[in-house]
């Protein structure tokens, strides 16, 4: 039986030895090549950074490595420790010592935390009998490893996105991988959690575990990786050896052009007050007798980009969801849109009042998996796009195309299934849905999660454009540099209250962190 959570060295290895070679990998979906001829090498005890724009094929390549796409579905060869391998399923790659953390979090919401960690390899008393006691004990240790302080008996459904992400990492680690693949592991994590994770990866590297690290948070990639590979359009376009990584060059390789200004900040005219919130109290989603947000009030002007900062679980998402009418509030909140007291008891009211919300979990509440891309994008604008109850198909298509082009969504056609898009492109679809509606106020909850640098810049300039058009924007982001560069004004949420409020001029990471951890005031 598998030993759980081995602590010793996996295998002392001389660094430089190639423990993984993926040779001439070619893969297509429905006749469309996605990986054209990719060769990737990984040395023992190194962290390889794999970057590339949305839809470049990173996740696909890694899914091939993990056996999620069986060996009959692509061409090419995989060698682990010099031995050619043919993975038919996840189980096969696991035997070869490969573990992958998928970009789309894949946990069982109705099972416990512990069961999720050990799913498929539950500790057993006798053959077939689950050893629950040991399961929970081992799970607690695994949670500690990734810095999660959770009851391992709680259900995953009750966890926030970032907790789920850390859980997925714990799940991979307990399987004692020799090669660990992380596909966007930090897209849902805060800075401090990210630091914990990066520390953890370094520790693993010291124990001889090699990692492949995929992320669109490039500074984090530059900080941790030993070597770097850049993909574009299903090809490897560049490899950077240790010590020779040039950040600007990497970005250029990725997006195929030079990015002059990462955070283009336009000068929008701050106009009249467009949104005022007073006395907003939101019950905690898990413990309804407690409040996660208490008596919060703020105002937002036309053309203003308001940054909402805070730690995970501070209730930023709850705050905007409650204003939007998506979750119940407590007491008498007052919401004024353009000075008019507006009753918002459901999202439809909010939308009719000119509000829009890009939620943080695109899969759960961002797109409809069974609808095509075009119908997803037009979903919130159906009323404008219809006459006498009929959808004006031609106008719909034209409008959708406009925004798909504007956001550079990588598509074969507007009638692609959203589920076939890469993660970043799915995010763009959700954004396009709200850009297409003429909103007065737009709430963006982690809008750049999983989006490549090129597209990020596009989204920042879109935010600028919107602001210039007089839209008021509330943005939640756990990437502080991004938040600080994009927003005009900041609110820091902690313990249910607004702890600090300041303008762009006074903003710094230190000040935000201080308020967020409750040290300020």
């Amino acid at each position: 039986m598998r030993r759980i959570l081995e602590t010793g060295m996996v295998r002392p290895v001389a660094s430089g030895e190639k423990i993984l070679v993926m040779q001439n990998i070619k893969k297509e979906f429905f006749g469309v090549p996605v990986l054209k001829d990719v060769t990737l090498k990984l040395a023992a005890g190194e962290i390889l950074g794999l970057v590339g724009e949305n839809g470049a094929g990173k996740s696909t390549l890694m899914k091939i490595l993990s056996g999620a796409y069986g060996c009959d579905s692509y061409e090419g060869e995989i060698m682990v420790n010099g031995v050619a391998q043919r993975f038919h399923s996840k189980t096969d790659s696991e035997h070869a010592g490969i573990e992958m953390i998928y970009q789309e979090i894949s946990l069982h919401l109705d099972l416990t935390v512990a069961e999720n960690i050990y799913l498929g390899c539950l500790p057993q008393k006798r053959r077939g009998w689950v050893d629950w006691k040991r399961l929970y004990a081992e799970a607690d240790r695994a949670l500690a490893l990734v810095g999660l302080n959770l009851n391992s008996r709680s259900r995953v459904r009750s966890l926030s996105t970032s907790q789920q992400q850390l859980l997925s990492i714990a799940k991979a680690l307990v399987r004692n991988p020799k090669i660990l693949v992380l596909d966007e592991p930090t897209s849902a994590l805060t800075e401090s959690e990210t630091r914990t994770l990066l520390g953890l990866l370094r520790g693993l590297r010291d124990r001889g575990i090699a990692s492949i690290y995929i992320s669109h948070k490039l500074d984090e990639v530059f900080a941790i990786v030993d070597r770097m590979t850049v993909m574009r359009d299903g090809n490897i376009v560049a490899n950077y050896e240790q010590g020779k990584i040039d950040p600007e060059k990497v970005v250029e390789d990725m997006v195929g052009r030079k990015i002059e200004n990462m955070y283009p900040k336009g000068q929008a005219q701050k106009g009249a007050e467009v949104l005022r919130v007073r006395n907003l109290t939101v019950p905690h989603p898990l413990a309804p007798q407690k409040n996660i947000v208490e008596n919060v009030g703020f105002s937002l002007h036309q053309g203003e980009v308001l940054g909402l900062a805070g730690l995970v679980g501070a209730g930023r998402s709850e705050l905007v969801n409650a204003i939007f009418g998506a979750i119940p509030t407590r007491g008498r909140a007052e919401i004024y849109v353009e000075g008019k007291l507006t009753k918002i008891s459901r999202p439809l009211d909010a939308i009719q009042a000119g509000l829009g919300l890009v939620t943080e979990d695109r899969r759960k509440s961002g797109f409809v998996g069974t609808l095509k891309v075009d119908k997803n994008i037009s979903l919130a604008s159906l009323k404008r796009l219809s006459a006498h109850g009929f959808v004006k198909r031609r106008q719909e298509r034209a409008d959708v195309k406009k925004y798909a082009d504007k956001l550079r969504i990588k598509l074969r056609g507007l009638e692609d299934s959203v589920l076939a898009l890469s993660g970043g492109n799915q995010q763009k679809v959700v954004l396009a849905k709200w850009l297409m509606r003429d909103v007065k106020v737009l709430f963006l909850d982690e809008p750049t999660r999983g989006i490549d640098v090129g597209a990020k810049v596009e989204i920042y300039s879109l935010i600028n454009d919107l602001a210039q058009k007089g839209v008021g924007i509330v943005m939640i982001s756990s990437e502080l540099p991004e938040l600080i560069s994009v927003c005009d004004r900041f609110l820091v949420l902690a313990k249910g209250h607004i702890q600090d409020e300041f303008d762009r001029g006074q903003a710094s990471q230190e000040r935000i962190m201080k308020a967020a951890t409750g040290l300020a005031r």
Partner: protein
Amino acid sequence: MPEKTSPRWAWLRAQETGLAIPLVLLIIIIGLVNPLFFDPQNIIDVLRNTSFMFIVAAAMTFVLIAAGLDLSVGSVLAFGGIVGSMVIAAGAPIILGMIVGVLTGAAIGFINGFVVVKFGIPPLIVTLGMMYAGQGAVLVVTRGTPVYPLPAAFNAIGQGNFAGIPYVILIAAVIGIVAHIVLTRTTYGRMVFATGGNAETSRLSGINVNFVNLSVYILTGIASTFVGMLMASRLASAQPGAGAGWELQVIAAVIIGGTSMFGGSGSILGSLLGVLFMNVVSTGMIMMRISAYWQNLVVGVIIVVAVGIDQYRRRKMA
């Protein structure tokens, strides 16, 4: 395999028409065994029998796409037929009886939908309850006796033809076309698809999910009672046992036609093929003179094989 077919043939590759191939195969086999199957009168009979169930199936398609379920259609059909017929038998104008019957169906559908939406009880249970309640209501009202006689003018609806084509077929065709257009062209149809595919996303996109979920049950309620009256007219009497077993047959036909049980996808055309398929199978059994003892066995195998062919074709396309 060609990467793209011309749009003219695209519909043949579309999901909804997947059943067409096994259906045509089956028809050819039946026709080879017994050419009388192609007798125009027989074809009309098959189409007429298909029409009744198709009308209910069209409404059920909306319910299933919206990720709902309605087990009450059979007993609501019987109840609606009886209520409408009683009004007509009592001497009221036919149109009034039809309206009363259909309103009864709308009211029942409203109750189904309201309980599902408001109390969050699974549709399977709500509509199972309504199935029993409907059967009960039929017995209470009729004491088990059919409503008979009915005026000849009423019976003409179900029995008469226009230029050799039974009215029933024409009515079903109109309803089918309207349902198809509503589902594919209108915002309402779009909302049904979205709600069934992901209710939370739809709600957050400003769709009145509760309205959608409620409305689809009203559709099945109306369709069932309407068909109940058509059948009463066809049989010259409203039968308390009409529609028995339809709950499963209709759902099966719709799903055989390619609509997902989990919501978010499906089509009226598919449901038409599904219902037609079921009717061709049962007619075929007799026309091919398959011993009654073997019929069910053969039907079971045919259903699985037909859907298997469809599935295989879809996979090859994917």
